[in-house]
């Protein structure tokens, strides 16, 4: 099959892919082509917005009484204990780095746009390469095997953490970058199943250390809470 034949074959599947109706075994092949082919990418995004709107055609169906309470209870809001970082079986090794690299990939933002998905994947690939090569990054470690790393990216830096428990419901995690002894906030974040990933526009060049603390929801002007991971001093 020539490249042109392959292109035509996949182009005929773009609408089906956008609707989620390409069989699972064919999906990676079709998606890879769409993300690499400008014509198919444009076609996919043309359909994607329409497809996302199909869901709007449904009728509202009232939820049973007590539904919100059940969701709140399942979310653990009313009984969220102040937990310590989870125990990990291993110390700092390649394993957390691989886990963090995986986190960078799985924490993608939900998107209806193929163009945005392509940009996400490119950014994640870059972050993943930086994590594994540790090129100019700052590593952080904590009790119980919790670990994190901040790595430079083209647009600033990316932060990935592994092995942290969910913050208590009225608290948040906050990342601090250190200029000598002076901490500068680089943002607050939450964890999902022990993993966290976010990107910032902060250039890492001027910083020589980092720490994560638990702070009141919304974050603090300066670190006030317990350090959960910190870079070696």
């Amino acid at each position, binding site marked *: 099959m020539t490249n042109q034949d392959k292109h035509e074959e996949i182009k005929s599947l773009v609408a089906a892919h956008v609707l*989620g109706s390409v069989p699972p075994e064919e999906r990676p092949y079709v998606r890879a082509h769409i993300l690499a082919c400008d014509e198919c990418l444009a076609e996919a995004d043309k359909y994607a917005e329409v497809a996302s709107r*199909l869901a*709007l055609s449904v009728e*509202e169906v*009232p939820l049973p009484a007590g539904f919100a309470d059940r969701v709140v209870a399942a979310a653990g*809001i009313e009984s969220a204990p102040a937990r310590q970082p989870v125990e990990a079986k291993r110390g700092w090794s390649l394993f957390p780095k691989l886990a963090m690299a995986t986190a960078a990939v799985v924490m993608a933002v*939900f998107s209806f746009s193929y163009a945005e998905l392509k940009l996400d994947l490119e950014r994640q690939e870059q972050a993943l390469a930086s994590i594994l090569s540790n090129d100019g990054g700052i590593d952080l470690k904590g009790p119980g095997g919790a670990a994190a790393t901040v790595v430079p990216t083209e647009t600033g830096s990316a932060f990935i953490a592994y092995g942290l428990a969910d913050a208590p419901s009225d608290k*948040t995690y906050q990342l601090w970058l250190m200029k000598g002894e002076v901490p500068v906030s680089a943002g607050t974040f939450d964890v999902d199943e022990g993993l966290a990933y976010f990107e910032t526009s902060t250039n890492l060049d001027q910083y020589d250390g980092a720490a994560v603390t638990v702070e009141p929801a919304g974050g603090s002007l300066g670190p006030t809470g317990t350090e959960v991971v910190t870079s070696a001093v």
Partner: protein
Amino acid sequence: MELADRLMERDESALRVVIATYGGLVHGIARRVVADQTMAEEVAQDTFLAMWRRPGAYDPERGSLQAFLLGVARNKAIDAVRKEESLKRTKESLIRGYVPGEMAGPADGFAERQQVQGALDQLSDLQKEALVLAYFGGRTYREVAEELGIPEGTAKTRLRDGLTKLRHLMAGSMEANE
């Protein structure tokens, strides 16, 4: 503070507002896809829990919270019917779901929802049944072809033509939302 920001800060009242506002629609799409009432409620619950546990997955710059929640719910519902054949709606029940009529639901986005249903009503029956089977029925294009007794190429064409026509019919409102 925006609802999305309050969710990021783990504000329980924000979660309750989201459920009160969008719960009926999220449940609506789950029921549209899944034949079983209890499973549809589970899909709705899983949708809100997913949003709560990973609020960063929603980016307000990429679309409305309503579209995000409906997208997540539909994906979860499709996953459920693909795992369990008995949860799948029949072709007849899926097609019957499209009886033009009065819509109810939150005022937020009401005109847009009415326009989407109006656009769907203007598709040919053949395009509509292919789209409905694929989008709400969780059928692959191969299954659409088999169920409708048509060649796979024809199934792909109907899906593409259906989306193209919807795009033209909805062009005005999509530009207005950009």
